[in-house]
């Protein structure tokens, strides 16, 4: 199909200083867990987006010096010639696809814990980091300022040598240039603190020096946070950012505009739970009004009409995407080809970001199981090889995220027939009711994308309203059987704290409920006072607390953990989730585990002082304690009928995927279904094939000749 002419503007080239970007699709700097020390993973990951049509792709934040070391988190580093070599792989691969390569030069100041380098970071004032506890910086004197600016210049030159076309002086997310600009961090009384001109001085001088050093060949990009949402001490749009753009527009080639500081950067990388796409447009528009140079910025854009609107309404010149580019690296190409219904839209769950926050593991994506697997597993999001056993028919039992993904990928791999059989009247599994929780509507995209793809696949048939038992599976006529029957929330209080049930907990009673009883089955929550027992630690407990509080209940949310929904800190949902629950007067109780419950009363103990008991008068109890796999069908097939008997019926493979193997994140369920389908023709599809571990390998013979640093 052809591109909709309304979207033509997205494909117009644009000049950024000395370089030309071929279209308006820009992959904003974002982490992936690879940095410069897993250079091939890094290069393949970024190049996939270039292949998918992005006009430019950036590194993640790229440290300019060992004194800006973010370990345990993984940044890129451009400290020496070897880093140049590693990062040049990414540049070359981007250039092969006609995309520009950008490098986000980063100095963290007090936020860099330097856990690997053990160096001391420098900052405008000696304040402890509000993000990385127990990390302080050394207050810079004038010599320090000159030296750090020198670090930027040296790094910029290395970036140019590596082949980067765009070089950042990154001053967002509370990193060094923003620290100088912002009274919250800058307490100086010399010519680098106080007035706007003084607070802007460090950044302006640094930009000038970087421009002088590499500006003839590289575009200079400045990424600026335009609001910290904290009043007087924070960075402010009108007081700080508008004048800064007016002051520096002549030495900057492109502005990258966002908001927030680092400790609440969920205001920038907004979870869909709290903000729709395009949330930053008012700030970007204000900067665009005063900037003569192009303005780019993110907004979790997945809809080309909204992208066009952002450009035509004078908010942006370039559409930057982070999460949508992870979810679908081929977003530009699909818009170009008019294949809008093939776009794998980001759901804004921030599970990608959670991996950076955890500190190190490769990113994952709920929608795109191939994200981060481009090099190490050789997975391409749009290309599927024909399976060697494609003459087989496959039965997938259960159409939750894992089953849908598996059936879809098996279909794309050309299996003769794939039947996706579902007991309910529609596909989606838990993703039919989870998106009904407050704010999670966009999560339904997990189902929508797969439904559309499965509809298009002639060899995949969806069969609703059909509950198969083990004999039904045996007689179904498939050569390969995949069980994807999901999981359920424990009805007896079984939990990960005591590894036991809670005496008295019984969700067959009217006063005791599980999440799916409330959300899927419509079981009524009796009375006013509800106690939610959350030993899960992610979104379910807080979401139900919000829902029930909105329904007018008086809610207590109790967990044995030290935080409410601790995983939501990693997904950047925690601050606003807390605000919401607090405003809804939800009582939040940590380090408590119920020891006994009955209608009307729950007794709990402090997890570190089990003799300290508390009684709670409640009308209803919701058990968000743990999930258990729905493994009955799989066990019947494997244990009662047995593999030999299945073989006699022509079934050569029996596998299980997703929650029915072990409960897990939805992203991991999708991965599980995808992985099995990708490897359905391997020698042992049940066992994941080894992936390439990008690491240094030492031959035994050479070990003797390798020495460490001189003593």
């Amino acid at each position: 199909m052809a591109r909709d002419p309304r979207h033509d503007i997205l494909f117009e080239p644009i000049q950024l200083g000395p370089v030309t970007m071929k279209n308006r699709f820009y992959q904003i700097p974002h982490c992936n867990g690879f940095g410069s020390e897993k250079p091939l993973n890094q290069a393949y990951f970024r190049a996939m987006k270039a292949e998918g049509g992005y006009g430019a792709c950036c590194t993640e934040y790229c440290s300019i010096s060992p004194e800006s070391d973010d370990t345990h988190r993984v940044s890129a580093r451009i400290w020496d010639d070897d880093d140049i070599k590693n990062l040049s792989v990414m540049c070359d691969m981007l250039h092969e696809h006609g995309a520009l390569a950008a490098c986000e030069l980063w100095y963290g100041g007090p936020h860099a814990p330097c856990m690997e380098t053990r160096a001391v970071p420098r900052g405008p004032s000696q304040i402890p980091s509000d993000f990385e506890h127990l990390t302080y910086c050394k207050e810079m004197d004038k010599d320090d300022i000159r030296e750090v600016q020198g670090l930027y210049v040296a790094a910029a030159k290395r970036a140019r040598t590596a082949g980067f076309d765009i070089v950042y002086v990154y001053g967002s997310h509370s990193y060094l240039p923003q620290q100088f600009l912002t009274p919250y961090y800058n307490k100086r009384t010399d010519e680098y603190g106080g007035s706007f001109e003084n607070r802007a001085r460090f950044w302006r001088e640094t930009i000038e020096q970087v421009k002088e050093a590499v500006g003839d060949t590289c575009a200079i990009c400045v990424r600026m946070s335009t609001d910290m949402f904290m009043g007087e001490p924070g960075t402010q749009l009108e007081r700080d950012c508008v004048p800064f753009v007016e002051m520096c527009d002549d030495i900057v080639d492109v502005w990258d505009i966002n908001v927030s500081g680092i400790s609440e950067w969920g205001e920038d990388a907004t979870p869909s739970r709290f903000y729709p796409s395009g949330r930053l447009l008012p700030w970007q528009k204000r900067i665009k009004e005063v900037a003569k140079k192009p303005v780019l910025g993110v907004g979790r854009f997945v809809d080309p009409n909204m992208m066009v609107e952002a450009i035509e309404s004078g908010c942006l010149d370039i559409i930057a995407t982070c999460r949508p580019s992870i979810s679908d690296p081929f977003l530009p190409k699909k818009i170009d080809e008019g294949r809008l219904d093939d776009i794998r839209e980001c759901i804004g769950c921030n599970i990608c970001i959670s991996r950076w926050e955890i500190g190190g593991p490769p990113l994952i994506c709920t929608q795109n199981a191939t994200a981060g697997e481009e090099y190490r597993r050789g997975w391409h999001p749009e290309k599927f090889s024909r399976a060697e056993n494609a003459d087989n028919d496959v039965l997938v039992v259960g159409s939750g995220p894992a089953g849908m993904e598996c059936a879809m990928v098996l279909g794309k791999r050309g299996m003769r027939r794939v039947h996706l059989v579902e007991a309910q009247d529609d596909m989606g599994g838990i993703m039919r009711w989870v998106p009904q929780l407050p704010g999670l509507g966009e999560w339904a995209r997990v189902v929508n994308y797969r439904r559309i793809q499965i509809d298009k696949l002639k060899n995949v048939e969806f069969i609703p309203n059909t509950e198969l038992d083990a004999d039904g599976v045996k007689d179904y006529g498939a050569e390969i059987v995949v069980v994807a029957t999901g999981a359920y929330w424990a009805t007896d209080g079984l939990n990960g704290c005591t590894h036991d049930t809670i005496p008295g907990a019984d969700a067959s009673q009217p006063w005791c409920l599980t999440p799916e009883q409330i959300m899927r089955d419509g079981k009524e929550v009796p009375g006013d006072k509800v106690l939610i027992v959350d030993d899960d630690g992610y979104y379910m407990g807080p979401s139900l607390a919000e829902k029930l509080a909105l329904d007018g209940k008086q809610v207590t949310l109790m967990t044995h953990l030290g935080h409410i929904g601790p995983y939501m800190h990693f997904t950047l949902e925690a601050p606003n989730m807390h605000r919401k629950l607090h405003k809804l007067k939800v009582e939040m109780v940590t380090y408590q585990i119920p020891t006994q419950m009955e209608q009307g009363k729950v007794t709990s103990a402090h997890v570190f002082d089990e003799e300290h008991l508390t009684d709670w008068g409640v009308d209803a109890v919701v058990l968000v304690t743990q999930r258990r796999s729905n493994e009955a069908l799989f066990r019947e097939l494997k244990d009662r009928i047995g593999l030999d008997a299945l073989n006699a019926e022509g079934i050569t493979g029996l596998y299980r995927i997703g929650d029915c193997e072990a409960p897990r994140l939805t992203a991991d369920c999708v991965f599980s279904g995808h992985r099995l389908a990708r490897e359905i023709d391997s020698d042992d599809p049940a066992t994941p094939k080894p992936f390439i571990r990008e690491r240094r390998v030492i031959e035994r013979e050479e070990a003797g000749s390798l020495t460490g640093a001189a003593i």
Partner: protein
Amino acid sequence: MKIVVCAKQVAMLGDEVEFTDDGRSVDTDYLEFALNEWDTFATEEALQIRERLGGEGEVVVVTAGDEDAEEAMRRCLAMGADRGVRISIEGIADRDPISVARALAQVVEKEQPDLVFCGVQSADAVQATTGVALAELLGLPRVAVVRELDYDHDAKKARVSRELEGGLIDVVEADTPAVLTIQTGINEPRYATLRAIKQAEQKEIEEVEPGDLGEPAAHVRRMFVPAKGEGAEMLNGSPEAVAQRIAEIVKERLT
């Protein structure tokens, strides 16, 4: 007991359409094909009657078309129909319903069934003509748009409720053999298991020549995309404002 189900492989349009060079039909590159939805209900109804009668008897599927049309018939066979008859006609899409009914009539006469089921209409042509024309050609009673059926095999009678316009239901008794055109929703069509689909591949499909189709009752002269009209009004604003404006427009048009 024998029931003949007349089934059709229908064409489905994708997002884009182009016409053939002569402008008389849609280029098949832009089409996908499937069993007509109504015919799945007709097949299911036939299978259920046979099951109610203890599994005795035969359900025969008849279609007209080229070899590709057998794919749709295989779906009926996978559901449980016993055998198929394909009347070999090239370019079936260009044939009018009366010509198709003439072809079907020749097979039905030979089969001598107790009941003949057609879908109410086909999803592509949407003429709702073939079934009733077939009854006329065979000289059999006909009931169109059947939503409920109670067949008494011994008495050779069918008690039938059929949809009329305006939500009215007409309950009639028909002597059988009769031709009934079956409406969607009369039952819940079963899905075929993979085993049934594989077995259906082995079932017999007899190919027969069409014989004399007579003069067509209609010709397609030209297909085209209608020109865009004028006077469309985009309603913008809050849901309340849009709803208000819609209500005003409806009131204006009604008065």
